[in-house]
């Protein structure tokens, strides 16, 4: 089953639909709003914490269920989630802090940047191009950064 690896375009359809679903949820829950992100970082509403917290809870319960029952995916391949390598831990707090600075300034993490473009805030294309440049810069500097 698993060897019929997908080169048929139809295999992408579920991902397109999940993306569309996400774009709608992001928009309607206002998590793509710069105002909502500011409200979160100022601890002035439960909204964002409720969303992230309940998303984590639902994901946690289902991921633990998948792991414990050794579920297989639709292709029959056992689902494995590789653990993240801790290393010295530097990359997580340092990279995380840099990401957080950007998150509060643009008011958008990567997913919402794309949803905002769909919402007609087309200038976010510039933020996306800039984010790609940031990722590229990390790739260039990677061997010289502490991880």
């Amino acid at each position: 089953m698993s060897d019929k690896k997908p080169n048929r375009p139809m295999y992408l359809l579920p991902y397109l639909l999940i993306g569309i679903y996400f774009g709608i949820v992001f928009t309607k829950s206002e998590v793509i709003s710069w105002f909502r992100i500011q409200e979160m970082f100022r601890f002035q509403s439960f909204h964002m914490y409720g969303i992230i917290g309940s998303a984590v809870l639902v994901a946690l319960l289902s991921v633990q269920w998948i792991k414990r029952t050794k579920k297989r995916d639709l292709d029959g391949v056992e689902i494995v989630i590789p653990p993240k390598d801790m290393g010295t831990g530097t990359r997580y707090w340092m990279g995380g802090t840099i990401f957080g600075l950007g998150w509060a300034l643009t008011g958008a993490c990567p997913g919402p940047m794309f949803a905002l473009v769909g919402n007609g805030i087309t200038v976010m294309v510039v933020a996306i191009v800039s984010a790609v440049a940031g990722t590229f810069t990390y790739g260039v500097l990677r061997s010289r950064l502490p991880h």
Partner: protein
Amino acid sequence: MIEFLSQPWPWYVAGPLIGIVVPALLLLGGKQFGISENLRHMCAMIPSKVELFQYDWKSGLWNLTLIFGVVLGGWIGVTWLENPDPVAISEATRSDLAALGISNFSGLVPSELFSWESLTSGPGIILIVVGGFLVGFGTRYAGGCTSGHAISGLADLQLPSLIAVIGFFAGGLIATYFLLPIIL
């Protein structure tokens, strides 16, 4: 129905709707939810000698398709399900932001800072260009963003993800309380 869906969705609806995608992607094709991987795939499309990008970006076609869907979903959300009212942020946030000089609260984002015209102003450039750069740099350095670490990683009880999420908040608080008052 449309009228009902057009209201802002409460957290207890939106959160579970987002969280359920993590097992859906795993069960569908063993895929892990991580939006910022797409930024790396876009780098891999550019011919370069950078080691991190030496792989076939088409391996991420499913994720690139997903993010294309997010753009479409955003368009559907605003075209057919638009909420005509301003984002209902708390009074406290409104007055804090007004004190920083923000006056237009009508859209999802302050139009004075996030428009093509704002790219000619210092604050606009810092928020859009510098902010975007930091998001892209930081997410790859940390090995994931809000989706990969805060949602997928915490759901898998990964300690590195918890450290990254604490970093996300530390950075966000620094930007909110120290940088924004200087920039705006």
